[in-house]
């Protein structure tokens, strides 16, 4: 086994890594949120007097105490730090109670009362878009918050040419990130008026934007630090930032450090989740299995606030039918407001849902046309030079979809396993056995959703040690470790020589958010630029000593080499450069290659490159118990280049198991009034150690010419296609198809008596 490199593993196995709640400061007070019993209502009064008089209470703050904007957000500025006159969801917070101790704050929070007139509660996207439905977002004419289209060719008329038409409705539920560390925010006011923020946040720059918006402060007056974060998976942006902002609201009023720690039920109740989807697909196929037309309509539940729904639904449009070639398509994807807990970014971001639908459609068509699931995919797969549904020609990287699919298929022995599948007829042991496969492609980074750039500094010290700072943040995924490895390879130095600066918003410019599996790609790009510049500086400073005219300096084996046996250690080089008044320091940037998008027809070069993936599983369904066990999982991903293979495998395993949870057990429950029921792990079942088998992961490396380091990304590709692979395997086992998640095996009629 190749040992894994992580710059933060030692402190994490010793229990000395500091997560937000592990930090405390002198004179620190404690804040807690106050929720109401309402889900959708007009507030008539919030009474805080009794709470204010409770022991130890320092402040009870409501919307009246917010100095800046009441509402902020990543796209639409609609999320209230504290609600003013209208409650829109069970997660809305009406007040913040701050006391000397957490226990005192909790006791006082009980005494805040809210009076309000209930409004009709809408929890279903189809209800929400009906004529006359009560409008939930402020200032919009209706509940549709965004609409993405793909328009290409003549799907209506081409549908008439189809030999086979599959029409199906698919549905996916509200899914919780379930990072193991709940939200926590700390604000320490500095004597010069600057606010220092520590928090369990995914992207310090985003937190800074939220804090400054609500507090009405310039960006430069707030510093958000980075430290250990207990997982995010896309989930520690808005809510975690707002928790920090509430701590800052209290801290500025009191002039003292304040910690706001969320317990699990608050985190589950308030934090945004994965958008539930309703998807109607009509797909036409020719006799030979080629896709001829698709018409689809999707409603994505954004909950009460917008967050990133317009972006995640954009991905659902751009990748609407998975990695297949099709000239004629009409797809409509709507983000719809309801009174559910709001939804936003979660690992996969709008593609796990559409993949769940379309990868099943491919299998359904294969069965009807008497083709194998592999053959129908081969006939439709994008290959080098193919045009995507958005009109993008894939001609500048290796389009390896078929390669990864064949790898997965041969590794698991797919054709054979599919033949052995039960198709509804139990084996001698009474169990049903099945194998299933799925494929996907995933646009790299954020694509035409947003601006894609990043920066890094590399700073050689007097003694030759190296400090690097990259605007990419650690959420548990190991991004800094990958950055260190890349730098060590480029400079030919051991990883121990490089110290990763725990970047803060004051140490480096904003590098765009830690999302979309982009960290290694964009951070690596920025590092490459910084290192290239640094090498020029060093070479310039040392050339007189190391090389003759026209010769090059080399960086390898932990030394800097010239010609004719001349070389310097880094320590010697560092000293010489400082004595010569040269800064061996470089700032590097990376800008993603341009992408284009036309909102009107959904055509354009959506992403500059794609990750190709294929996963297959074997399952055993127990008709008696109505349960499904996954027996085997094989995954292949072309991620460009593997920087830290053991860590990459960890990302693949983690993503698959998370996605398998979504396939088989995870559904966040709310009651008919919209109140959260799944408030802790006893009510929200994420996978445990015994639930899934060991995974065989194949990493395929076709370095991407458009990525400076060849790297693409893996965090999300790993998750986005396991649920259809499992659904296809369940169909092969039972002979019946489940079109909503989590797969409800008990709903199938499997027992012979039935």
């Amino acid at each position, binding site marked *: 086994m190749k040992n894994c490199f992580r710059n933060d593993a030692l402190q994490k196995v010793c229990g000395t890594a500091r997560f937000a709640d592990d930090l405390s400061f002198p004179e620190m007070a404690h804040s807690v949120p106050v929720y109401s019993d309402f889900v959708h209502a007009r507030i008539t009064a919030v009474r805080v007097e009794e709470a204010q008089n409770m022991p130890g209470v320092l402040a009870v703050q409501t919307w009246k105490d917010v100095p800046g904007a009441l509402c902020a957000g990543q796209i639409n500025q609609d999320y209230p730090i504290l609600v003013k006159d209208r409650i829109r969801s069970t997660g809305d917070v009406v007040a913040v109670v701050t006391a000397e101790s957490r226990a005192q704050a909790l006791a006082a929070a009980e005494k805040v009362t809210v009076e309000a007139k209930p409004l009709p509660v809408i929890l279903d996207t189809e209800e929400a878009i009906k004529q006359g439905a009560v409008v939930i977002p402020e200032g919009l004419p209706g509940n549709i918050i965004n609409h993405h289209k793909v328009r290409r060719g003549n799907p209506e008329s081409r549908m008439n040419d189809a030999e086979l038409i599959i029409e199906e409705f698919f549905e996916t539920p509200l899914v919780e990130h379930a990072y193991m560390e709940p939200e926590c925010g700390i604000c320490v006011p500095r004597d010069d008026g600057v606010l220092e923020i520590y928090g369990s946040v995914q992207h310090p720059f985003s937190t800074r934007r939220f804090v400054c918006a609500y507090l009405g402060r310039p960006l430069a007056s707030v510093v958000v630090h980075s430290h250990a974060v*207990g997982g995010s998976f896309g989930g520690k942006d808005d809510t975690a930032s707002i928790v920090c902002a509430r701590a800052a609201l209290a801290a500025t009023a009191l002039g003292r450090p304040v910690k706001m720690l969320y317990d699990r039920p608050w985190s589950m109740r308030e934090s945004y989740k994965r958008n539930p989807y309703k998807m109607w697909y009509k797909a036409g196929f020719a006799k030979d299995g080629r896709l001829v037309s698709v018409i689809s309509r999707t409603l994505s539940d954004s909950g009460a606030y917008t967050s990133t729904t317009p972006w995640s639904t954009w991905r659902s449009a751009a990748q609407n039918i998975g990695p297949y070639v099709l000239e004629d398509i009409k797809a409509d994807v709507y983000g719809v407001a309801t009174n559910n807990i709001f939804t936003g970014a979660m690992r996969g971001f709008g593609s796990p849902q559409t993949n769940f639908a379309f990868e099943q459609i491919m299998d359904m068509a294969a069965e009807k046309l008497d083709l194998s699931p592999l053959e129908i995919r081969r006939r439709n797969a994008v290959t080098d030079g193919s045009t995507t549904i958005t009109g993008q020609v894939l001609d500048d990287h290796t389009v390896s979809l078929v390669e990864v699919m064949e790898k997965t298929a041969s590794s698991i022995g797919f054709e054979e396993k599919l033949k052995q599948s039960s198709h509804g007829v139990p084996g001698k042991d009474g169990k049903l056995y099945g194998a299933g496969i799925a494929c996907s492609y995933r646009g790299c980074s954020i694509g035409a959703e947003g601006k894609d750039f990043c920066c890094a500094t590399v700073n050689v010290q007097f003694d030759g040690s190296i400090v690097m700072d990259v605007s990419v943040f650690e959420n548990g*995924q190991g991004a800094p470790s990958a950055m260190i490895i890349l730098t060590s390879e480029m400079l030919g130095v051991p990883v121990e020589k490089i110290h990763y600066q725990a970047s803060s918003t004051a140490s480096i410019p904003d590098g765009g958010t830690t999302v979309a599996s982009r960290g290694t790609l964009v951070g690596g790009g920025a590092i490459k630029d910084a290192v290239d510049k640094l090498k020029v500086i060093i070479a310039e400073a040392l050339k007189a000593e190391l090389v003759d005219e026209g010769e090059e300096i080399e960086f390898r084996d932990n030394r800097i080499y010239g010609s004719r046996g001349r070389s310097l250690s880094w320590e010697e080089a560092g000293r010489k450069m400082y004595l010569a008044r040269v800064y061996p320091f470089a700032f590097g940037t990376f800008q993603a290659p341009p992408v284009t998008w036309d909102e009107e027809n959904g055509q354009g070069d959506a992403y500059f490159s794609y990750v190709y993936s294929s996963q297959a599983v074997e399952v055993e369904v127990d008709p008696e118990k109505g349960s499904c066990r996954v027996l085997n999982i094989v995954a292949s991903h072309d991620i460009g280049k593997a920087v830290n293979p053991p860590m990459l495998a960890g990302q693949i395993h983690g993503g698959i198991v998370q996605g398998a949870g979504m396939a088989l057990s995870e559904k966040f429950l709310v009651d008919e009034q919209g109140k959260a029921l799944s408030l802790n*792990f006893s009510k929200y079942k994420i996978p445990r150690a015994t639930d899934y088998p060991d995974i065989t992961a194949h990493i395929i490396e076709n370095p991407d010419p458009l990525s400076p380091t060849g790297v693409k990304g893996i965090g999300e590709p790993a998750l986005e296609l396991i649920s259809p692979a499992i659904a296809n395997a369940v169909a092969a086992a039972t002979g019946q198809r489940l079109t909503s998640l989590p797969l409800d095996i008990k709903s199938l009629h499997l027992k012979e008596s039935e």
Partner: protein
Amino acid sequence: MNVIVVNGKEYEIRPEHESLTLLQFLREELHLTGTKNGCAEGTCGACTVLVDQKAVRSCRFKLAKAAGAEVLTVEGLIREDGSLHPVQQAFIDAGAVQCGFCTPGMIMSALDLLYKNPEPDRESIRKALRGNLCRCTGYQSIVDAVELASKRMMTAHITHQYGQ
């Protein structure tokens, strides 16, 4: 006077602390923040520590019940010479650490298992870790780590017994 031994050091349990959970006492009174709080309801295992060599969920364990007991937390594993316990080292080497929030609890549960069963197979490791949730790793590298630790500990044990 009630006392409790934590990582070899004796502490007094003051009457006002008796109603605390062991987790609260460790984190808030002793500032041993290596032990984590993921759910406070006994379902995630992030708070796992050893009480008299047995794994317990400290969030559901009243401090009063621990009176007179010996408690081991993740901070107590590192040896006096600064070297790591084999389980810690194996977690690093096998890539079992991602965000690290579950790690202290996982390590303590793994220790509990290895005391009882020094050579567990993967199946038994998975069973023993069933009470510890991890959202990052998918568990596979954690199982690898426990296997690796077991191998190394057995080899060390044999060398120790029969060496030279």
